[in-house]
């Protein structure tokens, strides 16, 4: 097969108010090739795809398809030009059947009356091209199908419209390993049929499993285009995070902690997992210790936190607190076990914007008491004042609405909320995201103070420096699996990056498949 380039993006620029999402990015795709698009969160992958498929109009640059300049105006328009996209959250119609979904909008008709038998035949033909090892029931309602099947149906739909370029935007995020493997097989089959495939993913293993070329974006800029076999993993990771390999190697750990051995175990997890979120994981969290969770986006960091806090309860494994077996199946129950969690998205699931600082602080206390027992207002005021002082929360008064506070101070209020219920374990998911440097240092100081007081903390951050600086042990995750645990002298940014980049060979991944 001749590798002729048929999609050529040149100097694509896209600005949103205040952000330059894409800065003169170029990208090309060839027939019969899988081209991976890599980059950390906010690198501009999705924006590039959305410009390419006409969801957003581009602010500059040219899109060439088969030598002709095109201007996709809508997803529909892009489809008619042969560019079809399958999104992470599958965009199909849940209440219609598989066959109806494949042919929606293009049903065979005779005098305006749909000829269902022909539609079914065409759908069957499209599915057949996927060369699956199993059957997909064309009569099944789409919402009854697994996400994996739904994705295959979406691909079949792309085949039915005779797409020349298939864009798969994070297709494997909600698939388990066997399902992902089946998807890769389909991708290879289609590649052989001459289809060009753009594969957007943050799973490094998967990039190397199927891709011929890799394009790396960072902060809206093109880092480069590489041939997969010529780009070692460590180099890919360093390009994604924006540090060159030398720099990565130079990074050393800055703070050393006193030995943590001999400390009392607070929480221990054995083979704790949840299908589609995190593969069975083992870990212990000790009194007076900060344990970090590191990994790239989508590696299962927040999923682990949600598992512990009962947001998305575990469906396998065991969890113990102080040697007692527990099953946190809701945040309310997790709170009764003495867990607290600072969520990743402060605005959405942290603060209650229109309530006052005081009301936000006593929220967890009140939740623990239940709705019928009111905290006397004098006591509530005392608690609020005490924390405002202790955590140095900058607010004109305790009655100020929390939405008027700065991000760092909002975060302190939420930490105060949890401190008010004296948790055994405090989970901090991205505690310093979106707050300024000064407040960041204060929050980090607070974390260490709580550690010294004997609290057990689990720290999640996408900034490796922050994790390394604050934790005495770090659990490294990749592709929803715990790879290793680093501590002491082994704990450096460099070592974490190396672990993340290392090839998964004897992974626990394969085992977990069989458990399901």
């Amino acid at each position, binding site marked *: 097969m001749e590798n002729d380039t048929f999609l050529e993006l040149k100097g694509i620029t896209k600005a949103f108010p205040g952000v330059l999402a894409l800065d003169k990015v170029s990208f090309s795709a060839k027939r019969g090739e899988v081209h991976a698009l890599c980059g950390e969160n906010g690198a501009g992958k999705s924006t590039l795809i959305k410009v390419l498929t006409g969801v957003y109009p581009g602010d500059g640059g040219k899109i060439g398809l088969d030598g002709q300049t095109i201007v996709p105006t809508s997803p529909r328009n892009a489809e008619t030009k042969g560019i079809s996209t399958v999104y992470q959250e599958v*965009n199909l*119609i849940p*209440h219609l059947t598989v066959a109806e979904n494949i042919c*929606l*909008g293009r049903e065979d008709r005779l005098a305006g009356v749909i000829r269902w038998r022909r539609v079914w035949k065409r759908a069957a033909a499209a599915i057949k091209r996927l060369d699956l090892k199993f059957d997909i029931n064309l*009569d099944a309602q789409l919402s*009854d199908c697994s996400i994996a099947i739904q994705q295959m149906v979406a691909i079949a739909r792309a085949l039915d419209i005779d797409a020349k370029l298939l864009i798969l935007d994070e297709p494997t995020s909600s698939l388990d390993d066997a399902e992902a493997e089946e998807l890769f097989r389909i991708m290879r089959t289609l590649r052989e049929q001459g289809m060009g495939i753009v594969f957007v993913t943050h799973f490094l293993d998967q990039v190397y499993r199927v891709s011929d070329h890799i394009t790396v974006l960072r902060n809206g800029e093109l880092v480069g285009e590489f041939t997969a076999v010529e780009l070692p993993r460590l180099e890919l990771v360093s390009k994604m995070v924006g540090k060159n390999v030398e720099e990565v190697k130079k990074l050393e750990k800055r703070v050393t902690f006193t030995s943590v051995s001999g400390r009392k175990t607070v929480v221990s997890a054995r083979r704790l997992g949840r299908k589609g979120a995190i593969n069975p994981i083992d870990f212990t969290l000790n009194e007076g210790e900060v344990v970090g969770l590191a990994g790239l986006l989508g590696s299962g960091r927040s999923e682990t936190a949600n598992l512990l806090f009962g947001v998305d309860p575990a469906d396998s494994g065991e969890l113990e607190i102080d040697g007692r077996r527990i099953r946190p199946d809701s945040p309310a129950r997790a709170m009764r076990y003495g867990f607290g969690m600072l969520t990743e998205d402060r605005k959405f699931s942290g603060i209650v914007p229109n309530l006052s600082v005081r009301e936000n602080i006593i929220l967890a206390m009140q939740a623990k008491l239940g709705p019928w027992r009111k905290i006397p207002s004098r006591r509530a005021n005392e608690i609020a004042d005490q924390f405002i002082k202790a955590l140095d929360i900058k607010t004109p008064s305790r009655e100020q609405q929390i939405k008027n506070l700065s991000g760092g101070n909002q975060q302190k209020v939420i930490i105060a909320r949890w401190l008010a219920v004296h948790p055994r374990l405090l989970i901090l998911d991205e505690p310093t995201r979106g707050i300024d440097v000064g407040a960041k240092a204060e929050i980090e100081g607070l974390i260490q103070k709580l550690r010294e007081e004997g609290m057990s903390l689990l720290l999640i951050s996408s900034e490796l420096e922050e994790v390394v600086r604050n934790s005495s042990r770090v659990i490294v995750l990749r592709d929803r699996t715990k790879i290793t645990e680093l501590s002491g002298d082994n704990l450096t940014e460099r070592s974490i990056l190396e672990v993340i980049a290392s090839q998964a060979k004897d992974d626990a991944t394969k085992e977990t498949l069989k458990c399901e």
Partner: protein
Amino acid sequence: MNSRYLPLVITAFVLALLLGAGGFFFTNFISFRVIINLFGDNAFVGVTAVGMTFVIISGGIDLSVASVIAFTTIFIAQTVNNGMHPLVSMALVLILGLLFGAIQGWFISYFNLPPFLVTLAGMFFARGVGFIINDISVAIKHPFYSETIRGLAIPVAQVGRAVVRIPFTAQCLIFFILGGTLLAAYSRFGRNVYAIGSNETSARLMGVPVDQIKIWVYALSGFCATAAGCVVTFYMQSGNSSSFVGLEMDAIAAAVIGGTLLTGGVGWVAGTLMGVLILGSIQSLITFQGSLNNWWAKIFIGTLLFLFISVQQLLNRRLKGR
């Protein structure tokens, strides 16, 4: 059997149960005449409900239909009494209804307004315009009404000396049900309506012209409501701008009892017909019973509706749980 059709089967079962109970307790309940009357008397609800079914499948709601019916009746009465031929008057009002619905649809899709509010405004508007035309009940005096329409009834059986005829109103209902079924199950328009109601974002990404389809859905509902208004004049032989307050809720109830999900994406025109017949036969049962207050019909309908939505929710949950 596909479990998707379970709500439809339940509806059919309830209808059979009601008719069976009627036949068991009252002689003559299951007679040709009663069944035909069931169709004829509820034709206007049925015709309205066909349009409503599409609106609900698309994920919307149309509160304006009852006002549109009232407007239609007074419009026809007034124009015919002023010398316009009924057919011309009806053609005119049908176009008006279509346009009125389309405008509501336009507001809903282009300004992205909630259908509830837009059609609530439409409801007040149409009711008001009706009162402007005439605020008293106006009898329609025209040979077309007193003779032609009656002549259109199709004789189907001879019971004793009386001839049982299918009145033109019932024929209208059957026509709309068949047309609606064809539109829902065998047209791209129908498929697109289901797609929008099931997941609008996806539908848009899959290339469904969401905005146009929505406009057509409300236009269709406006059209059905005016058609229902025409059907009303056939047996009332009069127009009244204050009539049918709250009928939109009957149409919604009929669709929901017929298995249409208020959240959109699921529904059947045939189910809606059964829903209408269920509402009608409850009314007939009360009438046959004789001693019960008429408001008992509402109590039964309320109870039934509650049971249906609970069952639908349970089924939904079970389907999702898999």
